[in-house]
């Protein structure tokens, strides 16, 4: 019985951070998807070589350096030259900038998978290039990218646990501070795992519903 009441006490403590976890996940997801979409459009349809090289460089830098290091640069590094971000702002910005590179690739793969005839046909019947991209190609590319975007969203939810390292008050942060005061280490971290799982499962389910509804039509 005492075990159960401790568990509930721990869960209550952790739930204090759940709000920040959810907000950081959602806002950085929004930031990554918008950034990634714009980058993908420019990279896929833009004509400027220099811009392509710049986007490629950005993606490589984001993808080959750990999130933890990016967060430290944004939070501790920038503060040292007088550009102070709050821990939550640094977390959202960091995860969003990294996610922009990840989703850029996912969107590009979506565009690349479309048959050439789609664009040619749209142009032939009189759509402007702009309309072709936005009205004909984008909706189809989105459908193709949806499953991998879903995987990315789950990954992002888990990755928010890293931002406890820059003291953003989310689930893992509360867990770590509880551990130092209560020594119920095993129980606390097990509860943490269960709580993340409880957040991830509905997200996975929502993605599955979206996929069934809007996903690529099965042949």
């Amino acid at each position, binding site marked *: 019985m005492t075990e159960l009441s401790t568990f509930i006490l721990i869960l209550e403590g952790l739930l204090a951070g759940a709000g920040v976890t959810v907000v950081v996940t959602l806002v950085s997801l929004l930031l990554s998807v918008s950034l990634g979409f714009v980058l993908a459009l420019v990279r896929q349809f833009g004509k400027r070589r220099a811009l392509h090289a710049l986007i490629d460089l950005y993606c*490589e*830098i984001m*993808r*080959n*350096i*750990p*999130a*933890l*290091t*990016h967060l*430290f*640069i944004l939070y*501790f*590094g*920038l*503060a*040292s*030259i007088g550009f102070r971000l709050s821990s939550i702002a640094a977390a959202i910005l960091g995860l969003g900038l990294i996610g922009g590179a990840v989703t850029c690739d996912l969107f590009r793969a979506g565009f690349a998978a479309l048959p050439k005839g789609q664009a040619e046909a749209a142009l032939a019947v009189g759509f402007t290039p702009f309309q072709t991209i936005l009205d004909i190609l984008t909706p189809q590319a989105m459908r193709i990218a949806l499953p991998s975007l879903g995987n990315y969203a*789950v990954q992002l939810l*888990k*990755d*928010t*646990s*890293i931002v*406890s*390292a820059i003291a953003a008050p989310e689930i*893992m942060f509360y*867990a*770590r501070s509880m*551990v130092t005061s209560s020594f*119920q*280490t*095993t*129980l*606390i*971290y*097990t509860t*943490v*795992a269960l709580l*993340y*799982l409880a957040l*991830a*499962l509905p997200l*996975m389910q929502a993605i599955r519903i979206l996929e069934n509804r809007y996903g690529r039509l099965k042949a």
Partner: protein
Amino acid sequence: MNRFIQPYVDNAGEWLPLLLEAMGKTALLSICAFALSLVFGLLLAVCRNTRWRWLERGVALYVATVRGVPLLAILFLLYFGLPGAGVTFDAFTAAVLALALAFAAQVAELFRAGLMAIPAGQREAALAVGFTPYQSFTLIVLPQVVRISIAPLIVTFVSLLKDSSLASLITVDELALTGRAMATEYFLPLQIYVAVGLCYFLIAWPFSLLSKRLAPPAAR
């Protein structure tokens, strides 16, 4: 700009050996963990395709659980949590195990996709010409699976390498932790964390390029 560059020039002699040693530790940690996750992953993938239903279910549950739980939670559970249950690891072992357990699920999914991509006729033909089931798996099916999976496996290795930075939070003295220690010592966090990022980039980038090289043209 000059003020940003100057500390590198002044401290190169002291920073380089520290960073190089830490890069070695990061590489060692990543390679050990990846090797272990390949073994776990292959076992899981094989168990996923057996006749025993409960084994399949167990593996599916494991993969789903690991997909939903952050690596950091697994890491803390192994390092800080298990001593409470009487099992103690040193930090490096705990980091290798946590990374391997987490990435084994991904590796298993890759192998499974690879296994499903091999037509059943390959195995049937091997059996028909007299290979034993074990031989037909190791000599006929597995090499083809490896060829399909190699590019995504390298991508997975790069993710593992990046996630090995989390080991710094359980006091493994790899790149990220060395960076933190240096940042407090020299009080130049921007320059030092950028240098740490560059070190990771130098290890990871060749693998990223290799994975693009090896990917089939359609996936590029």
